[in-house]
């Protein structure tokens, strides 16, 4: 589904991703771990199409298409979803209005009519229930005054509505309390199927206790320096990154 080959990315003249390759197939869950500043969020932003980041080398293919030729909204329409590490506030735009607009814009791009209000309402109720969200929530301004955990839950709610092919969750677990973590993880698991894929960026094992990854990668200084199965995450949790640094330097 996603093929990244030897990707190099710069921002303000500084190289951040330094030759990264990664392949994600449908049905898979990949976890990306790595120290602060390693380039995890940069990678996710580049996949989503943020244009401040300058791609200086390599390629990204999504479902056989060159992702780099597409503007961010087209990537979204193609099925790329990013749960932001820091979701943005949009004052005066309700959660309902925002997600309705997003869904209908994607439908429009696929040549579909706007979703009838009745179906939209049903879909929202269903996903709201899945993520155990308060009804009141839906009429509040998007992310404005939301707690850290509420913002993250709202991201996954949007993911549930948009039903993307590839979901990139950038530290979705940070800010979630223990119950919320379980609810959100459970939501993600329910949305998982053999045709979609998830890329989870996280620092901790706790989310991976709930969403079991097929692959775990360590992103360090702009490169994937180690890949393994779910046990790699456990090992990292126990030993930190020092041993990996030593391995690289050796």
């Amino acid at each position: 589904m996603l093929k990244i080959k030897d990707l190099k990315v710069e921002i303000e003249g500084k190289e951040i991703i330094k030759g990264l390759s990664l392949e994600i197939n449908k049905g898979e869950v990949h976890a990306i771990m790595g120290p602060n500043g390693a380039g995890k969020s940069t990678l996710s932003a580049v996949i989503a199409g943020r244009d401040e980041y300058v791609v200086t080398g390599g390629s990204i293919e999504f479902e056989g298409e060159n992702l780099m030729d597409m503007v961010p909204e087209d990537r979204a329409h193609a099925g790329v979803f990013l749960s932001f590490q820091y979701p943005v506030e949009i004052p005066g735009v309700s959660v309902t209005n925002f997600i309705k607009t997003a869904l209908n814009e994607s439908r429009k791009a696929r040549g579909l009519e706007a979703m009838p209000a009745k179906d939209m309402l049903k879909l929202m109720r269903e996903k709201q229930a899945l993520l155990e969200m308060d009804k009141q929530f839906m009429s509040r301004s998007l992310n404005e005054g939301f707690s850290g955990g509420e913002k993250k839950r709202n991201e996954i709610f949007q993911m549930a509505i948009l039903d993307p092919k590839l979901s990139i969750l950038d530290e979705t677990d940070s800010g979630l309390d223990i119950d919320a973590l379980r609810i959100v993880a459970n939501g993600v698991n329910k949305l998982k199927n053999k045709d979609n894929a998830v890329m989870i960026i996280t620092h901790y094992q706790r989310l991976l206790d709930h969403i079991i990854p097929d692959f775990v990668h360590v992103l360090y200084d702009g490169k994937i320096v180690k890949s393994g199965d779910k046990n790699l995450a456990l090992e990292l949790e126990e030993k930190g990154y020092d041993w990996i640094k030593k391995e690289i330097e050796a």
Partner: protein
Amino acid sequence: MTEEDKLLEEVTSAEYKYGFVTDIDSDTIKNGLNEDVIRLISSKKNEPEWLLEWRLEGFKKFKELVEPEWANVHYKKPDLQAISYYSAPKPKKKLASLDEVDPELLKTFEKLGISLDEQKMLTGVAVDIVVDSVSVATSFKAKLGELGIIFCSISEAIQEHPELVQKYLGTVVPQTDNYYAALNSAVFTDGSFCYIPKGTRCPMELSTYFRINQAGTGQFERTLLIADEGSYVSYLEGCTAPSRDENQLHAAVVELIALDEAEIKYSTVQNWYPGNKEGIGGVFNFVTKRGICHKSAKISWTQVETGSAVTWKYPSCILKGDNSIGEFFSVAVTNNFQQADTGTKMIHIGKNTKSTIISKGIAAGKSNSSYRGLVKIMKGATNARNFSQCDSLLMGDKSGSHTFPYIEVKNKSARIEHEATTSKIGEDQLFYCNQRGIGTDAAIGLIVNGYCKDVLNQLPMEFAVEAQKLLSLSLEGSVG
């Protein structure tokens, strides 16, 4: 190029999409402004002697006044001698069907959600008598008549209800008020009149159904609206539909009178031709709007301003009666070279008077948007309250916004709160929307409408939906 730069370029290169020229054949008098012209207007309209005297008094004052220059707008002063002050429009040539109308224009109508019949009316297509909204309007008029509500043109009111006109005309905006008001008083030929009797709640939004008839607004409009004791009316002025006008100068006067315990909601959507992207052409809109509140009365002004090259407009409330309330909710969008200097005046005279001001200015392109507000608390206005919030949203770095709040307090018990913010549409917000599949134009529409929500919420439902679309459209880039 960053998203913001792109946006800026798109916005500045967006052409005015709605302009269309109407060929109005008219019965016109020679250009120029003098006493004889005013006498001619008055006699053509078969007006009573007192009104002619009233006009002449306005003209006398006008000659003594100079065009105001304090507003934060710059333009070439229109030559008032080059205007013809009387022109009775003759019906335009009728088209046989909508097929004869410019398809681009129809697309715009569609985007704005204007009904087929209305599209026909606006483009001058002959309309089947059954669906003709003039006849719809007539039947509504009959219904209003049963309630004793008078709603007609000011010219008609002068003929049919001269006592009401004479009693109230100029009581809120005297002929001598200011340069443009004086000019308007001398030469007005068009406008609306409305009277709501005591204790009557007007059952419909006035002018929704009459919108089409009002599309061709005059250059010097005069509106007089009287809500008698305990009555209520919601009045809609203007039209989201495109209106182009060869008349460069528009100087309207609106007077509202809310007698004891009456309530007037006055909503405006203004979408006049703003000029092309070099800033050439476009309407100068210099309006004097003022209302007076008697005891426990309430006046709310709500305005969505997207058009005109130069706007100069301060809907105001004189809170004369105790416990009266004044409100002003405004969205002003400027793009390209548009300039807007708009705001309100709240004059607190009575005790326990309250006023609220919410102003949202949005400036794109090389445009300039200023908020100018005065809150004046007079000596006798014990316990007066005011809350003002003035926000500006800038798009790109070539636009400007300014806030000029003036506060005069002569009674120590007054409580006044003023908040002001200036913000920009962030790249983070745009990218977030893009990532969710919302393209940049749609994202701007969404963000701007969210930003203006407090004001749009004040509009009657039907109008609000149109206004939202209009806001999105007026900021839409040329790239789809």
